[in-house]
């Protein structure tokens, strides 16, 4: 697959001297859903704003659809739709008018049928003649999405689309993202919710302190960094870990009936076979075995808390 967005050696230093992006390089493939994860202040919004032309890069190059965002900005920008993190809408405007406005801004001929369809897709059609001020917070967020979709973008940036949105609406948005993807739209979303990235992304990027720590296929990331916990239930509890098992990285559960063993799923030698035979040799009887896979959340927490992120 070809890259529809290419970011090369991007640096951004704000006027006050703050380095918000440090040498970020990223290829976004056409048609994929990329989730950017990172703690507050990591630089997610800065990265998106720079690609969209709202923030000026300090150095580095960005292309969208092969068009440089500085030299060939007009062509690049026509391809992009942006749903910003902050809800900023003109309170006294009518819903339909703001969406039509967005379509026009991006050099599309007026097409009320299309705008109506976008509003329907976002369950906003009944509110099309209401003022923005008369909408609920979740509806306003959907208006922002409608505005971003009004000019039929090829690349859609969603900056925390589901922040402050109820569970049902979040599912609706995921469904919408799926539909857009089916139409071939490339989607980049930032989120704090790992479950969101896990549910809809093809690839996950992790940003921290202005650095892109890694970008990887979600499944690969999980298997590469994923850990599993093996829970070994014993028929008869033990008071302490038997000396024979001292060589293993084991912990005894609080009720002293189970042994807990953590291992990396991607590794060739998990040590499980050796452990199990050692347990047998120690004269213990197994009652049950359980494994639990770590979620993206565990991986993410592990990553942003280690001093050195693993190179991608």
């Amino acid at each position, binding site marked *: 697959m070809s890259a529809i967005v290419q970011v090369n050696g991007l640096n951004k230093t704000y006027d006050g001297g703050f380095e918000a992006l440090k040498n970020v390089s990223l290829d976004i493939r056409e048609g994929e859903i990329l989730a950017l994860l990172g703690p507050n202040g990591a630089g997610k919004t800065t990265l998106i704003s720079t690609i969209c032309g*709202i923030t000026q890069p300090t150095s580095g190059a960005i292309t969208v659809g092969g068009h440089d965002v500085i030299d060939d900005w007009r062509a690049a920008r026509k391809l992009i739709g942006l749903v910003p993190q902050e809800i900023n809408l003109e309170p006294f405007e009518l819903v339909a008018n703001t969406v039509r406005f967005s379509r*026009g*801004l991006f050099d599309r001929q007026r097409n009320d049928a299309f705008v109506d369809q976008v509003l329907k897709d976002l369950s906003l059609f009944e509110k099309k003649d209401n003022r923005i001020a008369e909408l609920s917070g979740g509806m306003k967020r959907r208006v922002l999405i409608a505005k971003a979709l009004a000019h039929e973008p090829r690349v859609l940036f969603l900056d925390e689309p589901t922040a402050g949105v109820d569970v049902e609406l979040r599912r609706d948005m995921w469904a919408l993202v799926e539909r857009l993807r089916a139409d071939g739209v490339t989607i980049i979303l930032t989120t704090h919710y790992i479950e969101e990235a896990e549910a809809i992304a093809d690839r996950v990027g992790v940003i921290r302190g202005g650095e892109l720590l890694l970008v990887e296929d979600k499944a690969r990331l999980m298997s590469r960094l994923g850990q599993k916990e093996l829970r070994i239930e014993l028929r008869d509890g033990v008071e302490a870990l038997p000396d024979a098992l001292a060589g293993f990285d084991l912990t005894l559960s609080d009720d002293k009936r189970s042994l807990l063993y953590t291992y990396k799923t991607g590794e060739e030698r998990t040590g499980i076979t050796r452990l199990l035979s050692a347990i047998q040799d120690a004269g213990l009887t197994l009652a049950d075995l359980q494994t639990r896979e770590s979620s993206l959340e565990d991986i993410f927490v592990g990553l942003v808390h280690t001093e050195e992120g693993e190179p991608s």
Partner: protein
Amino acid sequence: MNWNGIAAIWRFEMARFFRSIIQSIVSPVLSTSLYFVVFGAAIGSRIPEVEGVSYGAFIVPGLIMLTVLQQAIQNAGFGIYFPKFIGTIFEVLSAPLSAFEIVIGYVGAAAVKALLIGCIILGTSFFFVDITIQHPVWMIAFLLLTSISFALLGFILGIWARNFEQLNLVPLLVVTPLVFLGGSFYSITMLPPIWQTISMFNPVLYLVSGFRWSFFGMADVPVAASLAAILLFTALCLGVVWWMFRTGYRLKS
């Protein structure tokens, strides 16, 4: 050129105007009528004629200019300041629109609004005084140029302003005094010589003078000077706007 984009901004801004059409029109018409009553009737009865024109008619061009300047600055200033203030400006900045196109949209809408109000005031004044316009084409040209150049100034102020106070400050402290001292309600030949000289440095004098010439064929300064002044002012404003967009001044970080 992104004509769809220009049209979108223009329509959006005009919609803002028509949403509050009553305030937009009633307030200038009311204040103009008050000026006619106060200046025209009360003072005019003591100054029967200025260079052969009745005082009531004499102040019409100045009155129109006063309102058109205020409206052009206010509309353009607010038009760009408000999206900046509530954050919707991001959309315009991320759209495939050049600085020039953005300016055409916002300034164009503000200028048209100011022009409309200017025409309404002219219409109102027909109820109070008899006027014949000697050079109607020039009158429209002056009105149009003034609307555009001061809408540009308002646009600059809107980008520069960090709060509503600043947005209102310049029109209040600079523009209104310049208009009042710019011969809107008198001919500068009525002033002592020293004040006549000082008035020559007031750019608004050139506007009012040229505009009044298009009505009555009389002027405080040569018409060519008026035209040159307003073109110079427009060019200056365009230069500042160009610089603002090039550097992202108070728009982009």
